Structures are given as structure tokens and as C-alpha cells.
């Protein structure tokens, strides 16, 4: 029992998720925030795979495919948004985009 157990994976996943969350909350560059979101998604993917392996069920792996698909679509839309942002403001600092308020 000296190998890598499911707990290790889950702890790693939690660390990655927290890092991602921290990044989303603190960074101002939209691309970095975007990368942090990707990090959070992949942290979730990791725990899916780990638990799938642990429980001997394919469900988790199938979910991962869905998450990856969504992440890919999100990347496409997100990058397109950022290009538009930049064209308008010559910046991708999220603090600059606060028009949508009361």
C-alpha cells in the first residue's frame, strides 16, 4: 500500500481547484482569469478520473469528455470575446469592463 492512492489525487485536485479559484478572484488580466478557470475545470476532471478508477465505473470518464467539450467551446467563445474587448478598449483588464451595472 505504498503506491499512490485515490486520496493523493483528490488532494492534488483540491489544491489545483483552490489555486484556480484564487487566480480567478485576484487576477485582472482576462486571459489569466480564463486560464485559471481552465485550471479549475481540469482539477475537477482529475477528481472525476481518480474516482472513476477507484469505483471501477466508467461514468466519471464519460463526464470528463463532456467537461472537455464544454471547455473547448468555452475557450472558443471566450477568446472571441476577448478579441472584441481588446478592439473596443485596447485592454483586457476586467476592471475596465463594468458597464453592465445598475
Amino acid at each position, binding site marked *: 500500500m505504498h503506491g499512490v492512492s485515490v486520496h493523493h489525487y483528490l488532494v492534488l485536485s483540491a489544491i489545483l481547484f483552490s489555486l484556480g*479559484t484564487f487566480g480567478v*478572484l485576484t487576477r485582472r488580466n482576462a486571459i489569466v*482569469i480564463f486560464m485559471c478557470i481552465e485550471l479549475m475545470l481540469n482539477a475537477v476532471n482529475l477528481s472525476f478520473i481518480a474516482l472513476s478508477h477507484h469505483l471501477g465505473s466508467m461514468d466519471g470518464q464519460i463526464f470528463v469528455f463532456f467537461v472537455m467539450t464544454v471547455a473547448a467551446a468555452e475557450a472558443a467563445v471566450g477568446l472571441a470575446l476577448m478579441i472584441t474587448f481588446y478592439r473596443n478598449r485596447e485592454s483586457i483588464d*476586467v476592471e475596465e*469592463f*463594468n*458597464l*453592465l*451595472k*445598475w
Partner: protein
Amino acid sequence: MQEYSYLWLIPFFPLLGSVINGLLGKKIKNEKVIGTIGTLAIGLSFVVSCRYFFQLIGDAVKIHEVVLGSWISVGHLQVDWGFLLDPLSALMIMVVTGVGSLIHLYSIGYMHGEEGFYRYFSYLNLFCFSMLMLVLGNNALVMFIGWEGVGLCSYLLIGYYFHKKSAGDAAKKAFVVNRIGDFGFLLGLFTLYWTLGTKHGIWTLNFVDFAEHGHLLGTGSMVVTVVTLCFFLGATGKSAQIPLYTWLPDAMEGPTPVSALIHAATMVTAGVYMIGRMNGLFAMAPDTMMVIAIVGAATAIFAATIGMAQNDIKRVLAYSTVSQLGYMFLAMGVGAFTAGIFHLMTHAFFKACLFLGSGSVIHSMHHAYHQEHLHDDAQDMRNMGGLRKKMPVTFITFLISTIAISGLPGFSGFFSKDEILWWSFGSSRGHWLLWLVGALAAGMTAFYMFRLVFMTFFGEQRTDARVKDHVHESPWVITLPLVILGFLALVGGFVGIPHVLGSVFGHIPNKLEHFLAPVFEHTQELHHIAAHGSSAMEFGLMGVSVGIAVVGIVFAWLMYLKRPELPGKFVASFQGLYRTVFNKWYVDEIYDALFVNPTKRLGTFLWRGFDVVVVDGIVNGVGKLVTACSTALRFTQSGFVHSYAFTMVVGVLVILGIYVLK
């Protein structure tokens, strides 16, 4: 047993005509086509009515029910789409479709060039449909459809010239006053249905069942008195009796053929018909019968006094109608059901003829004024005079009908009115006072009707000189109905020759009484209602009432032809009385003060006091509360993505915390 299964065709044709003209009339545009459709619809229904009428005369069984299908079926309540053909309804459908056809034909000429020609014919056909449903329904609910339908059509047709405020007001007044009566009708019906059902186990709305089981309620019992009084309230609304008669004179705002059909010949007689239809119940309530007789007699004389002082030709006829309807109710009240229905029929003939005749005069006057661009009142009798040479056909038919309504021997009104007067004197439920009031009213009737004839057709032509030559006789579509109705007004009375007269001229039977016997005879025998007295007495009374009528005519001749200065002198010496009568005894003003204005004030209070303050206050208060909350909350929407994300994370952490720590 003969077949009556196509009875439904009678109301169906007018309904079809109404739908066709109502939906397509605007596209058809051609007046001849629209008028033909409308007239044909009611004409076909007249043909079917004739067929069944004569079939019924030859039939041994006199009461037929035809059920098309079930309408309402809930627990005890079973209502059918059913028709009832008995002598009473057969007579009524003949009057409604016969007079209706003539008036449709007349309308083609009278309404020529009016805006909304198709609308007029659609309403008129719809009215005929409703009236036929009212008359033919075999249960009270089908009758009530017709009852409400005729009220609606009356409203629509009074308000035909809706751009005139007076017409709109008159229509509203007619509708509201009728609603009061309908309220009474419904209350009576509910009470009757409920009492028969709960106390005696007979859940029915069917007239035949009412007649069969009505006796269970008990003669003179409280419930039957209340029920019949409620029904009578309905009748006073529809048939313009005191206290609900005020709408009928105002209803003259509608086109004249409408006044003839709805407000003289058919709809206003619905109350009389209804009492005739439920004669068994009414006979069981002597108190109600007394009320009906008194109200009828009072209305007859009251309206006659007003009619004597009016100058508008249609208003005189309107008050005359109210007065004649009073006679019919007097007849019903003293148990002379046959006489009441008889007068209904003869009145339909001569009053329709009078109204159509006045319409012919107005039509001609109106056109004459129109051509000279004058704005004198085409309905004011003071502007007429000397028209008998200009409009001979109208004059002769009008004169015949006037003699008929005045009750001179040989004309239709004589037979029916005298029958009523005789019964009101000699009936076991009559009283000599009722006879006296009726006879006086007859004298007044003769006076104001001949006043009308003299002012309109005799003497000098008082129209503007420029107009004189433009006044001429109306086209044939107008005069043909006049001639037919005038003929009926002349001979229509011979179907109901009183026994005393019949025996003098060699045992001529009273055909109408014999015909209606299956409906009324049983009731009259059961409650011992009959007119008693010697034939000498009957002849004497007849002579007196004819004498009073002749006196009325002579007075009219004296005042309006022989010495035209007399009315002015009379008015000058009795100013107060004249003004009171001219202003219709101020009844409208009294009603306004007693009922209309308090109701309006209550309405204003409910609007300004309750609706604006309480209801709107609650609604607006809720709105303001929400606005205040959201004003405070909207500052959380800062537009900064970071704060949103942070809020989300905190939220997730809180939920997780609660989940973990619990």
C-alpha cells in the same frame, strides 16, 4: 298524432338571416339584396308558422312538445332545447312572423339610404329569432333566452343612431330598466323551481309540468303569491307597466319600424304572453291577480293622460301603447286571459299600422325638409296638418286603425276592448271601479288618437310654404304593409265576437275563445273565473263605453278642428295641470331623484372612496414596496466581475460549511 318535428325551422330562418346579413352585409352593400335576405328569412318563417298553425287547428291534440336535444343536464336540473306548440304559442308565432314580415318589407323603403342598412336588418332578424324562442320555448329557461334576446335587440335598435346622445341614453335606459324586471323574473323562477323541487320532489322548468303540478303549491299560498309577483315584476319591465314603463316613450329614439315591431306589436307583449303561459300559477294567487288588474288599469289611464298632451307623433303612440298594454294586464288580472290575448293580437295589428303610418308621415316630412334644407322637427304634429290629400293611402289606413283603437263598433279594437271591459266588470275577480277606470281610459284614448289624426291629416297644412309640394305619398313597400295591416285592423276582431253579439246575429261562435280554450279553460273552471251578468247589462256597458269613446272623439273634433283656439285657452286656464301632464307627471324627474341619482352617488363614492383609495392604495403600495427594496438592492450589481465571483465563492463556502459542520 301529427308531426311537428320541423318546428325549429321557425326561429332558425331569422337566425340564419341575421347571421348572413351581420357577417356578410358589409360586403354585400346592395340594399335590395340585404333587404330581400332579411324579409325572406322572416317570410319563410311565416310560411312555416302558417303550415303548423293550420295543422294545429285541424289536429285533435292541441298541445305538442318537440324536443331537439338536451341542453343542461346537472343532477335534478334537466333542461332541453324544446319547443311547445299550443294554441297560445301558435297564435303568437302567427302575429310575430306575420307582422314581422310586413315590417321587414316596410323597412326596405323606410331605411333606404341609411348608414348601416345591413346592421339594421341583422338586428331585426335577430330580434325575430329571440321573440320566436321566447314564444315557442317549452321551458322557462329557453323562454328566458328569448326574454333576454329581445331585450338585447331592443337595446341595439333603440341605439341604432348611436351617434346621437339621446338615442344612446334611451337605449341604456331601456336596458337597465329591463334588467330590473329580469331580476324579478329570475327570482320568481328560482323560487318556483326550488319550492317545487324540495317540497314536492318535482324538479322541473317545463311549462307543461308547471301547469300539471302547480296546484301542489296550494291556492293562495304565500309562495305562489311571491313567485307570481316576481314574475309580474318581470312583466312590468318588459311590457312597460307602472312602475317600470318609463323606458318605452324614450325608446322612440329608434327607427319607426322598430317602434312598430318591438315597442308596439311584439316584444312589449311578452309580459302578457308570459302571464298567459303560466295562467295556472297566476290564477292560484288571487292577490297577485288583483295587483295585476290594478296596475294594468292604473297604467291604462295614467299613460292615456300623458298621451293627451304630447306633440311628438311617436310619443303619443308610445304612451298609447303603454296604455293599451295596461288594458291587456287588466284583462289578465281579472282572469280574462282570452280577452287579453285577443287584445294583444288586435293591438298588434292596429298599433303596428299606426306606427308604420306615422313612419310614412315622418319619412315624407323628413324628405321634404331635407330637400329644402330646413331643420324643422319632422315628428312634431304642430308642423303637420292637411296631409290627407297628399298621402291618401297612409291617411285611410291610419284612420281605420285609429277607429279600431278607439273602439268604435265593428272594428277590431271594439271587440277586444269591450271583452276586457266586460270581464273587468263582470268577472268574479273584477270590480266596477276597474271597469270605470278602463272606460275612462278608453274615452281618453279616443280623444288623443283623434287629436293626432286631426292635427296630422286635417285642417291647414302648417308646414313651411316651401315644403308643401315636396310632401307626397310613400312608395309601395311602405304602403303595402299599411294596407294589409289596416285591413287586419278592420276585420281582425271578427275572430272573437262576444257571445251576446254573436247570439243576436244568429249564433256566431267566438272562434278565438274556442281556439284558446285548451290553454285557459281548465284554469278558469278550476278557479271559477267567469264573467257573470245579464246580456242586457253587457249591452248597457258596451253602449256606455262606446258613448264615452264618441264623446272623446267629439271633444277632439271640437278642440282641434272646429275651434282651434280652444286648446290654447284651456292650457292658459289650467297652466299648472297642463305643464304637469306635458312633463309626464314628472315621473322621470322623481325617479332620477329617488333612484338614479342616489345610485350614481353611491357609484361615485365607490369609485372615489373605495376604488381609488383602498383598492388602488393596496395595488400601488405593493408596487412601491417592491421598488424601494430593489432600489436598495440594485447597488450590489456593480458590474465588477470579481465581486460577483467572490460572492459566488463565499456562497459556496457557506453552503459547504453548513453541510460539513451540521
